[in-house]
């Protein structure tokens, strides 16, 4: 906990950090790797740098990228009842609400479970690759990272995974249900997405985008 009380305005603005949830202001002091700077008032984590976090995030992001693409197209679940067989991919599930006003719902579902997570991964890689390689940031990297942060609450892959479990139980007594390869891909994907979010220290990314020459964090 590196919070220091600041009382005077004559501190340089660069030396201040403001908690985004409760607006408490602190004099900035960078915690060491593995330590965390936490807002004293509302206990929000402000800075949590880790060693080689950039590399870890990139590795996870790359894995997520391929898993999403794979999971979207391979068969996800198969159903078998009295000789009738049906296999669906996640894309099929997302586009299940077709026809009439339901098309809106199709598009929204597809966006929430495939396109938003995919877009976030691509944006993350776009922003972090130059940072990790100690190069100047890519063009519009700042805007890209902002967009990716704005999309965070709308990325619902993990919720879809639990939804699958519920759906499975619902049909289990109606027909025989089997798992396709995409089901397992999706399971791994969910774990990785959660891991990626917990590695990411937003402050470190902003800082490295602003001062590209500083060491990676």
């Amino acid at each position, binding site marked *: 906990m590196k919070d220091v*009380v600041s009382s005077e*305005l004559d501190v340089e*603005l660069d030396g*201040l*950090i*403001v*908690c*985004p*949830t*409760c*607006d*408490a*202001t602190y004099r900035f002091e960078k915690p060491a790797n593995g330590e965390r700077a936490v807002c*004293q*008032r*509302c*206990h929000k984590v*402000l800075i949590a740098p880790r060693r080689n976090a950039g590399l870890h995030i990139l590795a996870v992001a790359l894995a997520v990228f391929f898993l999403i693409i794979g999971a979207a197209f391979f068969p996800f*679940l198969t*159903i078998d*009842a*009295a000789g*009738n067989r*049906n296999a*669906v991919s996640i894309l099929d*599930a*997302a*586009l*299940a*609400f077709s026809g009439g*006003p*339901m098309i*809106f*719902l199709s598009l*929204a*579902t597809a966006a929430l*479970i495939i396109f938003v997570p995919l877009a976030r991964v691509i944006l993350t890689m776009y922003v972090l690759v130059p940072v990790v390689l100690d190069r100047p940031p890519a063009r519009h990297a*700042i*805007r890209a*990272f*902002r967009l990716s942060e704005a999309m965070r*609450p709308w990325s*619902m892959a993990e*919720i*879809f995974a*639990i*939804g*699958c479990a*519920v*759906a499975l*139980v*619902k*049909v289990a*007594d*109606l*027909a025989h249900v089997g798992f396709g390869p995409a089901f397992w891909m999706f399971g791994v994907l969910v774990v990785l997405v959660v891991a990626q979010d917990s590695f990411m220290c*937003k402050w470190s990314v*902003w800082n490295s*985008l*602003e001062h590209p020459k500083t060491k990676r964090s």
Partner: protein
Amino acid sequence: MGIVACRRCTKAQPLGTQTCPRCGHVLQSREPLSLQRVWAFWVLGLMCYIPANIYPMLKTRTLFKVEESTIIGGAVEIAHHGNFGIAAIILIASVVIPLGKFWAVAFLAISVKQRYKVTNHRRQILYEVVEYIGRWSMIDIFVVAILSALVQLKTLASINPGVASIFFALSVIFTMLSAQAFDSRLIWDAEAKDGGPARDER
């Protein structure tokens, strides 16, 4: 203190700066009309939540009969089959969480204006829980999507989404927007105005 903070990248700027030079986010000391937007989305969400419970969520067609079940009806039916766990998940995700969210957002918005004997920290936690858990209500929509894509066995059985699914999705989206519109810094303002324990941190 004469500074305004960027909520996206935590950088401090002199008061009056329009956009953050670091990340380009629009800077506002407090979101203007935050509470108005909260209430507008809140009402929209509630309006959508009513038809979501009245109309059928799923249309199940088996060999000889067509069944239409609402959210609660479907959960009760599952419970009758003995799957209490799943019935509980559905009831919690699509009834308890949305209703709890309506209550929590309304409480937070009212408590900014009026006095309640709930500490700021409690309210902050409540806000974070609401923001985190709100997305999980989408689970019912995903279940409907999976079921209606999967169970298409020609004459034998098929499941199709009902009208309620649209309203339910809209309700979840509007309540998420409502929670996002709430400026959590308002929670702490009341305390700072009193000259309460916030003093030592400023």
